[in-house]
């Protein structure tokens, strides 16, 4: 009953045109639950024979993906993608999550786990290619690659498109509380995150690459800059922001924005839409001065022992029905033409999920991997910024106390020594 009410509420909000995004999708989905059931039973794949090659061979593959980044069938009327794949192919899917590209990289570098399909982002992909950690795909085995839109092929991180099949893309924008911030969406830009009127109401990315990108865009630098001076200027701007930042967070944004603990936060478009779906007081804008366009793509690590099965999984993820189910669930933007065509018109025209191609071409940049030196410098500047002391606390208290306590201990010890010597005699 509650759910029904919720969907009605959502539907009416969409009507009001407050935000056009996935919300429209959920509402519709709830309404034609029946149809969804039917699709589930009659999931059509382009070439059933292709998928049954490994049936009953007891093969399993390890898939390593972002959290909340696949349709799991947990919500009513959605598709259990991994379950469908297992049913269709007889290949068991061991599905695990990571929270950041770096976590994934560390896991792979550690060598303890072997994965067959991973879904990292752009800059991490170029790093993995450079370090020979992912292998070339056999596109013969991935016929569904043909669905990928032309402008998402041969991206900078994989110029000949030999290693990756794009899964989703999106932009970084600002989530804000529309009830407290009285600004028209077109007036909102990155400088809102530096606005002292909202001190202690601002959340910031807890990851140097994304945080630096915002600061770099504001100062007109490239987000892929490796110039030491530009990086320092970017860090200086972030340090200036620190005193009005409530916290540096990643996934906690969901809770904090949802609970009204903060008013402004930068975040990824897809996740932002998920938050918006549950909070009608929140709004999301992609700042017009430019932003980062990120692409997450599927790849196969060199350590994979089941390359063909992994390619089959990638191909399956590119089946129109599956790609649609995923994108519908996770709310990011899809590079998959057929899935895009299946989306509601409202979503397709949404300026959040699918900004016009002119904006994308002129104002968005994809991350590429930085040189080791630039990465190191960024990391050092970030640690320095984060560990910078508040100006109002006295620097001397802690060291003085430490020294005093050490002196105290030494005195006590000496006294004890003397005393114990006396005791003996």
């Amino acid at each position: 009953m509650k759910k029904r009410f919720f969907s009605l509420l959502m539907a009416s909000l969409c009507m009001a045109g407050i935000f056009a995004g996935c919300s429209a999708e959920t509402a519709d989905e709830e309404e034609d639950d029946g149809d969804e059931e039917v699709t589930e039973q009659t999931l059509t794949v382009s070439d059933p024979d292709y998928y049954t090659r490994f049936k009953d061979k007891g093969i399993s593959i390890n898939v390593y993906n972002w959290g909340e980044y696949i349709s799991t069938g947990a919500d009513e009327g959605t598709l259990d993608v991994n379950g469908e794949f297992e049913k269709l192919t007889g290949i068991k899917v061991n599905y695990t999550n990571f929270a950041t590209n770096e976590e994934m990289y560390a896991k792979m570098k550690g060598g303890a786990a072997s994965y067959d399909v991973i879904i990292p982002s752009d800059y991490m992909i170029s790093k993995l290619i450079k370090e020979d950690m992912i292998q070339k795909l056999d596109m013969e085995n991935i016929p569904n690659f043909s669905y990928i839109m032309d402008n998402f092929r041969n991206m900078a991180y994989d110029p000949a498109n030999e290693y990756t099949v794009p899964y989703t893309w999106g932009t970084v924008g600002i989530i804000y509380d529309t009830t407290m911030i009285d600004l028209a969406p077109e007036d909102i830009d990155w400088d809102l995150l530096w606005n002292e009127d909202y001190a202690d109401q601002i959340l910031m990315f807890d990851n140097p690459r994304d945080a630096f990108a915002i600061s770099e865009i504001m100062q007109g630098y490239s987000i892929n800059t490796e110039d030491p001076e530009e990086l320092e200027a970017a860090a200086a701007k972030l340090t200036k922001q620190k005193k009005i930042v409530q916290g540096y967070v990643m996934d906690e944004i969901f809770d904090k924005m949802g609970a009204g603990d903060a008013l402004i936060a930068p975040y990824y478009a897809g996740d932002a839409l998920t938050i918006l779906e549950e909070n009608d007081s929140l709004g999301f804008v992609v700042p017009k001065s430019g932003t980062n366009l990120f692409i997450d793509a599927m790849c196969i690590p060199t350590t994979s022992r089941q390359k063909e099965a992994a390619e089959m999984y990638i191909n399956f993820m590119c089946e129109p029905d599956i790609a649609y189910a995923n994108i519908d669930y996770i709310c990011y933007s899809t590079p998959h033409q057929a899935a895009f065509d299946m989306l509601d018109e409202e979503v397709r025209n949404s300026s959040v999920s699918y900004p016009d191609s002119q904006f994308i071409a002129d104002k968005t940049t994809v991350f590429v991997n930085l040189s080791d030196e630039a990465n190191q410098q960024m990391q050092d500047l970030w640690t320095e910024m984060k560990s910078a002391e508040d100006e109002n606390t006295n620097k001397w208290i802690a060291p003085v106390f430490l020294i005093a306590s050490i002196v105290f201990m030494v005195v006590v010890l000496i006294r004890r020594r003397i005393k114990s010597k006396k005791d003996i005699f």
Partner: protein
Amino acid sequence: MKLKYFSAPYIIWMVVFIAVPLLLIAYFAFTTDGGSFTVKYISDVGQYANIFIRSIWLSLIATAICLVVAYPVAFILSRMEKHKQGTMLMIVMLPMWMNFLLRTYAWMTLLGNNGIINHLFGLVGLGPYKLINTSGAVVLGMVYNYLPFMILPLYSVMEKIDKSMFEAASDLGCNSTQTLFRVVVPLSVPGITSGITMVFVPAISTFIISRMLGGGSNLLIGDLIEMQFLGNAYNPHLGAAISLVLMVIILVIMTVMNQFDPEDQVLM
């Protein structure tokens, strides 16, 4: 002689899971990617001195608060009737039945700007105060999570103090303050030192408390180490070097602590 064989499982365990990893940390701290010897990473640790000082400072405060809060509790507990002690001890332990992360997470909602505490302040026309994402919140998280580790060792030492000690003390003319400082405190020193160890060591190396309650702007050593392994930095050598330095610092502090204990029974 035969008894020796029974310790074999633990010795194997200790070698494989304690000694070897420790040696590996030392190895990583002193080598480069190529495996050649270097002291670069150890000297790099120097630039994080302020983070070290902050970690030591915050965990010292937390330890001191724990001691002050736990001491009377443990004393009252140890003087209760036996059958009540069991119940009270269980109440002390009760929070520990719940997952550590959940407990810390709960504080996030309590301390938030629109959290319950600020809400209550709001009812009487105060606030809202900035409670979360401060170093105070980090200390609070440490005290809350590690308080039982202070109460338990104190209690177990005080429980052994015979009632006749108090009688003898008052017989010989001690007032209650003198009894406390001349009888109870000296006899409970082993409990104090092991309690301090058990609170201070986990507090100084925690990272999740500062992450959740410190809002990412109160970096502690634990966060710094975590960043080297799971963060953008990915520099296991530096991470190992920081861990090694932290270990040495803890070792030094513990050695000093040990000197206070007359019987050298401190948990390391």
